[in-house]
């Protein structure tokens, strides 16, 4: 900072601490609620300090879930979310890498056409074409399956653009050298392009994993079989009950939020890179 004014620093820290406290508040409340005994939350006043029933609540939720809400144990739902998020992430990354490679390193008819076709997907979020997309998935007999959960969501214009931008910055000499050495396109892709893209892939991986994990509307519509319930949609089922068991709901909320939050905290640098670059 330009000048050093102690009161200004003090003021700035105060603002930030209040801000951070407000941002953390809802999650703190969830943590506190998830450690209470079954009846404690219904007594009118919400306790502000953690209770002593945390372990048993989490264990109950993890192993058996809330059976009246027809929701499977959290362990099962977390696994479903993980499979779905991984399928979406790996799918998005692979098809985007391949199409960016084709667009940058080949000259073929209708190249621009395909480029725009992919671009259009940016403008068609699943929320706006929900009913016809549901019909397509139903016609393809993909309801209640991991394929139905993930494949319709894996087209990715942003990832394709990002990889295209990145490939454009790779020096021409790389390609020349590879061709002189007699490398074909697939060998070039596998041995040169992929290793050079590792950081970009990792950064996008963080963003896409979170995107996949947090899907809500789509799994809600296309899965009715509890075997495919993801944790985010499972929580909604639990809250929609007559008298939600808040201590268990909040334990589930914490378990649902933890994996993506940990991904961000451990990969913060990659996360920021992925975020700022995909939006450009």
């Amino acid at each position, binding site marked *: *900072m330009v*000048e050093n004014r102690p009161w*200004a620093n003090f003021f*700035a*820290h105060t603002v*930030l601490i209040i*801000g951070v406290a407000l*941002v953390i508040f*809802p*999650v703190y*409340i*969830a943590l506190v609620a998830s450690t209470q005994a079954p009846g404690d939350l*219904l007594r*009118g*006043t919400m306790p502000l300090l953690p209770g002593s029933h945390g372990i048993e609540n989490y264990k109950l939720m993890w192993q058996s879930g809330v059976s009246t809400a027809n929701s499977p144990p959290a362990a099962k739902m977390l696994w479903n979310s993980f499979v779905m998020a991984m399928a979406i992430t790996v799918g998005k990354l*692979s098809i*985007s890498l*391949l*199409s960016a*490679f084709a667009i*940058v*390193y*080949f*000259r*073929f008819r209708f190249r621009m056409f*395909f480029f725009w*076709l992919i671009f*259009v997907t*940016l*403008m068609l*979020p699943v*929320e*706006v*074409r*929900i*009913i*016809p*997309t549901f019909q*397509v998935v139903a016609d393809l007999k993909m309801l209640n399956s991991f394929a139905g959960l993930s*494949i*319709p969501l*894996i087209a990715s214009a942003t990832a394709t653009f990002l990889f295209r931008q990145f490939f454009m910055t790779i020096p*021409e000499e790389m390609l020349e050298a590879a*061709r002189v050495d007699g490398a*074909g*396109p697939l060998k070039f892709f596998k041995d040169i392009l992929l290793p050079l893209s590792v950081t970009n892939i990792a950064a996008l991986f963080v963003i896409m994993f*979170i995107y996949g*994990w*947090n899907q*809500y509307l789509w799994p*809600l519509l296309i899965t009715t079989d509890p075997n495919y319930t993801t944790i*985010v949609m499972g*929580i909604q089922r639990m809250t929609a009950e007559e008298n939600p068991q808040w201590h268990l*709901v909040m334990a589930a909320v914490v378990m*649902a*939020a933890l994996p993506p*939050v940990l991904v961000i905290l451990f990969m*913060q640098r990659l996360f920021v890179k992925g975020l*700022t670059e995909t*939006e450009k």
Partner: protein
Amino acid sequence: MQTKRMTFPGKWLPFALLAPQVIITLIFFIWPAGQALYQSLLREDAFGLRTTFVGLENFARLFRDGAYLNSLSVTVVFAVGTTLLSMTVALLMASTVNRMIRSRSTYTTLLVWPYAIAPALAGVLWWFIFNPSIGIVPYMLEMVGYRWNHRNSGSDAMLLVILAAAWKQISYNFLFFLAGLQSIPQSLIEAASIDGASPFKRFWTIVFPLLSPTTFFLMVVNVVYAMFDTFGIIHTTTQGGPAQSTNILVYKVYADGFVGLNLGSSAAQSVILMVIVVVLTVIQFRFIERRVNY
């Protein structure tokens, strides 16, 4: 569009490489979008036995329909409220964090994680906090004499969904504002400071104008977020109620189509939403092209 000077020869390989992306795009994006366009021109009778071509009648009906116009204005209030709230808080946080040297990364870490929370979970969290019978905030509001009840009061419900939506978006805006602030040359600020400009004056006359590209970009992104990514928040909290007061457009498409089974109207609403996304995307991209030259 640019390509490399040198490329690989190959007639079929590029098509094979593009095939997975293109097939998925055609089956799950283009075809359903086309279907929505087509269905928006049809009307189905009450038993689903007969469909008739009605042209633009579905659209005309929508704009005569009080519920739709209400949903439109609810969406505007929601999007503007969410955008303003999350951007103001994020800018305040980013400009204070930007002053810090040693503690900058700690504060950043403490502020970025809500990005990872699903909108549906954000909805559940805030709904719980504001629950009229057991929530902590209504309890506190009671002490200052306000009876919070988002089950009856439309404005309470709107405030609840705006808070949940803005809370989740603060981290995103914060990161972009912080990046924007860090790209402002320190020398400009030093010069102004030597001329005797106070911190607030420096902010309004130098920092804020230089930040305007970031601000504009974030405005578009936030409006898109509020309009399209907040389905989960609405669905887990108010479900559009009470009395339609939080029934935003994206939620109404779902409710009219899946719950009400009014396919023609729902399809027409989808088409209107698509037009809105196209417009917002074009603005975003034109602007981003400008920013590259900036």
